[in-house]
């Protein structure tokens, strides 16, 4: 049954209807809620587009196709379809984690569609390869799949995370329990394998869109040297290192993340 983009990828539009387009794509593990502290900062000036990748959050499980989505190219095609269906142009794209590479693939295929790329914690390859240091071994990735399996029982039991400690922000309540980091375990497992075995190093040099790499000072998933690698490989790309630890500055250091994205979008992009 064909569905529109809004239902397939759980698209949420906000911000200025006549503003320039700003698309946020979440990374592996969670869903569009990852942008909850970042996206609102752009709503006064931009048309903000949020969505859930296939297999994640509240995207339509039926739209996850193990063949189409057996490489990140499938997700990039989804992104292009989504942009076309919503009639987006001159897209400023902000992709976190695996979505950074999804954005790269989409921009390589349709450079005219994208005017800026912001890559938050990007990694073109997670697994070490000869001289390249991705930070992980193939065994580590198997360990992740085991880790997903171990947390599968909890998921299967329908464990709803309890919301705590935000009495002054009740909006963090119900919506989060239903969409934050929730995924069909089987799809999550497949997506994990696709994500962590991908190798998109060769695609970086083909990017012609002005790009910014946003890197945390200390990130085991996408270490600083990988951020530098991405900057060096994408022609003309810039690198900004945030004074933040972990892989999710969009949640742990939202102000710094917002400032860096805004500065890049406001600049010439040269």
């Amino acid at each position, binding site marked *: 049954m064909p569905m529109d983009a809004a239902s397939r990828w759980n698209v949420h539009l906000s911000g200025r209807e006549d503003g320039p387009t700003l698309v946020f794509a979440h990374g592996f593990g*969670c869903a569009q809620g*990852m942008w909850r502290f970042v996206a609102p900062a752009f709503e006064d000036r931009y048309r903000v587009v949020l969505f859930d990748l296939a297999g994640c959050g509240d995207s339509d499980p039926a739209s996850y196709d193990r063949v189409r989505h057996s490489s990140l190219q499938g997700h990039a095609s989804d992104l292009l379809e989504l942009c076309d269906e919503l009639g987006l142009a001159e897209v400023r794209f902000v992709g976190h984690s695996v979505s950074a590479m999804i954005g790269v693939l989409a921009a390589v295929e349709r450079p005219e569609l994208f005017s800026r790329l912001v890559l938050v914690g990007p990694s073109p390859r997670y697994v070490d390869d000869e001289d390249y240091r991705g930070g992980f071994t193939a065994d*580590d990735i198997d360990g992740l799949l085991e880790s997903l399996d171990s947390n599968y029982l909890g998921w299967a039991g329908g464990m709803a995370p309890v919301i705590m400690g935000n009495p002054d922000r009740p909006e963090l309540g119900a919506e989060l329990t239903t969409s934050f980091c929730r995924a069909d375990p089987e799809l999550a497992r497949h997506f994990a394998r696709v994500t962590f075995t991908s190798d998109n190093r060769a695609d970086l040099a083909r990017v012609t869109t002005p790009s910014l790499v946003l890197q945390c000072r200390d990130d085991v998933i996408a270490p600083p040297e990988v951020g530098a690698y991405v900057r060096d490989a994408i022609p003309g790309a810039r690198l900004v290192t945030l004074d933040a630890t972990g*892989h999710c500055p969009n949640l742990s250091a939202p102000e710094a993340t917002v400032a860096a994205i805004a500065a890049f979008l406001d600049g010439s992009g040269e």
Partner: protein
Amino acid sequence: MTGPDPAPPDSDAAVPADDIEQLYDWAPCGYLSMTPGGVVVTVNQTFLTWTGLTREDLVGVRRFADLLTAGGRIYYETHLDPMLHGQGSAREVALEVVRAEGEVLPVLVNAVLERDQDGAPLVVRVAVFDATERRQYERELLRARRLAEEAEARAVELARTLQQTLVPPRPPEVPGLELAAVYRPAGSGAEVGGDFYDVFQVDEDTWVAVLGDVSGKGVEAAVVTSLIRYTVRAIAVRMTDPSDVLRDLNRVVLDHETTHFCTLALLRLVRIDDGWQVAESLAGHPPALVRTPDGTVHLFGSPGSLVGVFDQVEFTTARRFLGPGETLVLYTDGVIDAANAGGHFGEDGLRARIEASSPSPTALAQELVDEVVEFQHGSPRDDIAVLALSVPG
């Protein structure tokens, strides 16, 4: 968390009221506090004892995530950390802590992120539970689930394969006779149904056709179906009267000591000139319907005992000539017992369909089964089998 309650007045004096620091350090779970960035700031003795790490190894130096296996670290960064910062807490997250000596300790982790009055992250509190045995049990469960899923897939495949051996994909070519058979298993078709049919040659001008319905479902019913199908083939070669075949078949099924029984219609067809002499015996099965060239439909056959229930059985052989333009239809009870909110498909419904249907047995059988399926809104409750034979003319 609140402090320890004052000791009730009648408490046993030998047990001192617990001290909050003692409780923290020696609680039966590991406690850690960390910066919002994940660096350990305090840790209790229980965690240190479990892991063999020292305070100097941890406090102000290492992130909790660094203590995990690589797979768990990815999970932490991509799930637990986002949950903490995005929703304030995470519960029952399964991870593995690497001990000082290198072995791993499976743990369950609850964690909360506390924010200050302005909403800025202040501290992350983590409770760590030893889950060694639970994890083993869960792995067993997971493996059992995987095995069960595989076994189910194999069973469905087996059912399909078995079904194909019990119900030939199409009846054989018989010169001078048009044959059509349609079989539709009940429901989704994942189980082996009890209906079967077979058409085979016993000498140059003689053929045997059988349509039956074995009670029950599943592998045991399929075994009985297989037994009946091959026994009929073996007996029909040496016995010419269908009633004799059914009598012998009854003996074989009774000897098989199964609780499954069977209804069937057995036809022996001998080619004579431009038609066929038909001898039919019924075992608890509805009689055949014969449509003559003028479109009228007649019952053909006398009722007989079920096969596989009684020692004493009674079978009668009915005979008639099937001439050019005539069609004989055999069916299982899945046709007439089909029901919807409006009632049963019934014998009258069946007769009406056969009277109105096209002369081709292929079209007749297919249309009839389609109608019965549609009558039950696409999901038949019982197997449906129809075998139609007609003499060209």
